[in-house]
Structures are given as structure tokens and as C-alpha cells.
């Protein structure tokens, strides 16, 4: 999903940082080129607003530019940059929160009666993603970062600057809240699968 950096890319990051710190502004382009997709996608998961995601990612890059000298190389460049971006996104969303419904008011997926199972599944997926946005921030952010980091607890915890245990506990609580909100999701999923199989068989006939 997110093409996180093998060692060659890390070396490129380090070389570009060194060039920027030596006064070569254009070298920052390499960093933006490599990191624009992850940072925009991360911002998208925080805000679910494409225009805003790009604005937030741009702000994160500017902060990175200003604070490049503060990267102490104790952690990898990716850890530093993603933690900085998470801070930027968090504070941006505090200043201008996204328009979200409370979790209880988040729309439930349409039922299994839907004729178009693929569309219904897409809608139920969107409903769950919207419900994540309606979670309180302390539970929302671990969910966002956990899936952004392809379910890597250690990476998500490093981005948030939290111990892994705390992140796991918050993830567990977030899952419980989502389960409460969507108690029939699995049935719908099964029904949808069943109805799509039936539709497929009928189409064959």
C-alpha cells in the first residue's frame, strides 16, 4: 500500500537532507517527491477531504523544511517525518475540526436487500470509514495510523510517540466502539456474499 522506504530510499533521504542543510534548496524536491504520496494519504485518512489533505500535507512539508536541522538521526527520517506530519494534522484538525456526525449518528450500512452487492459493500465500507472519523481523537488516531502503517503496531506507536501497549489498548477500545456501532456488519457481509453468489449463478443460467 504505502511504499515505505527500503534502505536505498533512506540513503537518498539522508543525502537530500544533507544537501538541503548545506544550502541546496532544490534538494528538498527529492524528499517531497518520495514522500508526497504517503503524507497526502495520511492526511486524507485524518480528514477524508481531498483538498484539505493536500493543504495539510503541504503544511507538513513546510514544517519539515523549517525543522530539518532538528532531525537528530536517532530515529529514521521516515519516523521523524511521519511523527511531524501527525503533529501537524492533529493540530490542524484541532483548529478546524472536520464536519463529522457523532458516532451514534453515523449512518449504518444499507441492508442486505440491496440488489447491487458491490455497491452496497462499498457503501458499508464508506460508512465504517466515516465512523472512524467520528471516534474521539484518542481512539481515532491510533486506528488511522495503524491501518496507514499496514497494521504495524510499532510504526504506528512511533508515529504517535506512544508506547506500543498504549496504542494496542486504544486500538482495542476503538474496535469495541466500532463493533457497537455496526453490530450487523458481519451478517450483512455474509448476506451480501451470498446474494452476489446467487446473482452470479443466475447470471450463469
Amino acid at each position, binding site marked *: 500500500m504505502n511504499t515505505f522506504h527500503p534502505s536505498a530510499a533512506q540513503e537518498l533521504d539522508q543525502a537530500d537532507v544533507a544537501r538541503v542543510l548545506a544550502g541546496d534548496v532544490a534538494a528538498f524536491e527529492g524528499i517531497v517527491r518520495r514522500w508526497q504520496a504517503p503524507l497526502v494519504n495520511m492526511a486524507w485518512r485524518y480528514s477524508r477531504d481531498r483538498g484539505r489533505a493536500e493543504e495539510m500535507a503541504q503544511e507538513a512539508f513546510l514544517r519539515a523544511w523549517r525543522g530539518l536541522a532538528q532531525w537528530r538521526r536517532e530515529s529514521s527520517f521516515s519516523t521523524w517525518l511521519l511523527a511531524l506530519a501527525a503533529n501537524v494534522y492533529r493540530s490542524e484538525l484541532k483548529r478546524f475540526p472536520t464536519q463529522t456526525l457523532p458516532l451514534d449518528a453515523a449512518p449504518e450500512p444499507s441492508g442486505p436487500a440491496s440488489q447491487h452487492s458491490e455497491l452496497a459493500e462499498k457503501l458499508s465500507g464508506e460508512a465504517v470509514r466515516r465512523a472512524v472519523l467520528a471516534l474521539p481523537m484518542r481512539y481515532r488516531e491510533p486506528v488511522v495510523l495503524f*491501518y496507514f502503517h499496514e497494521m504495524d503496531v510499532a510504526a504506528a506507536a512511533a508515529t504517535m510517540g506512544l508506547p506500543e501497549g498504549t496504542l494496542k489498548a486504544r486500538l482495542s477500545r476503538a474496535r469495541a466502539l466500532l*463493533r457497537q456501532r455496526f453490530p450487523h*456488519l458481519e451478517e450483512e457481509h455474509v448476506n451480501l456474499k451470498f446474494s452476489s453468489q446467487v446473482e452470479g449463478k443466475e447470471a450463469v443460467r
Partner: protein
Amino acid sequence: MNQAKIDRSAMLDAKIEAILAGEEELIPSSGFLASVMERVQEEAVAPPPIPFPWKQAIPGILATTGVFAWGAVKLFRQGLPALNSPMLPLPHLPAALVVPVEQTGWVALALGVTLLSWLFSRRLAGRGGLL
């Protein structure tokens, strides 16, 4: 019954996990890189912000603090006997007692302080390249 509940929770979790993990990737717009670099270039050529002149300001801050502290001590000293007396005496300053020379002194002091602060601010502005 309990096992069924656990199984159900696990299935729900798996479904939610599948939904959240299967998110499509967003591709940044074509002008994103250029717009970030444009802002970075702007920042790079902009003059650095003028740092607050702590060195010059500290004596002033200390002097102001000293004046306020002195005033507070004076007030406290004058206020204590007044608190002990049963009635608060009204301030009585007959005009005849106010010496004109003293007035002139205060005006001169105020003008002097104004002049000094004006010179000080001009000096700071000159160092910052504003003059």
C-alpha cells in the same frame, strides 16, 4: 453462548479490519509537488525573522520591575498605618504645598524617558534593517 459471542466479535473485527485495510490509495494532484516547492523557495529567500532583542530588553524589563516593586513597597508601607486606623483618612493635598519646581522635575523626567525610549527604538529598528 459466550464462545459464540467471542466468535461474533472476532468476525466483526475481521470485517472492520478488512474494510479499513482495504482503503484505496490517493494520488497527489499533479501540481502538488510544484506548489510545495514554490512555498519552500519563498521561505528560502525570505529574510529570517527578527529575533526579539533580549539583550537590550533585559535592562528595561529589570528597571520596570524594580519601579513596580518599589511602588508596591511604598504602597504597602503607606497602607499599613491606614489599615490600623479606624477610619480611612481622605487624601489631603492642598495646592499650596505642591512645589512648582517638583512639577517641572516630573515633566522633565517624563520627557527624558520618552526621548530615551524613542532613541532606543530607533536603534533597534536600525539594527533590524528597518531604517
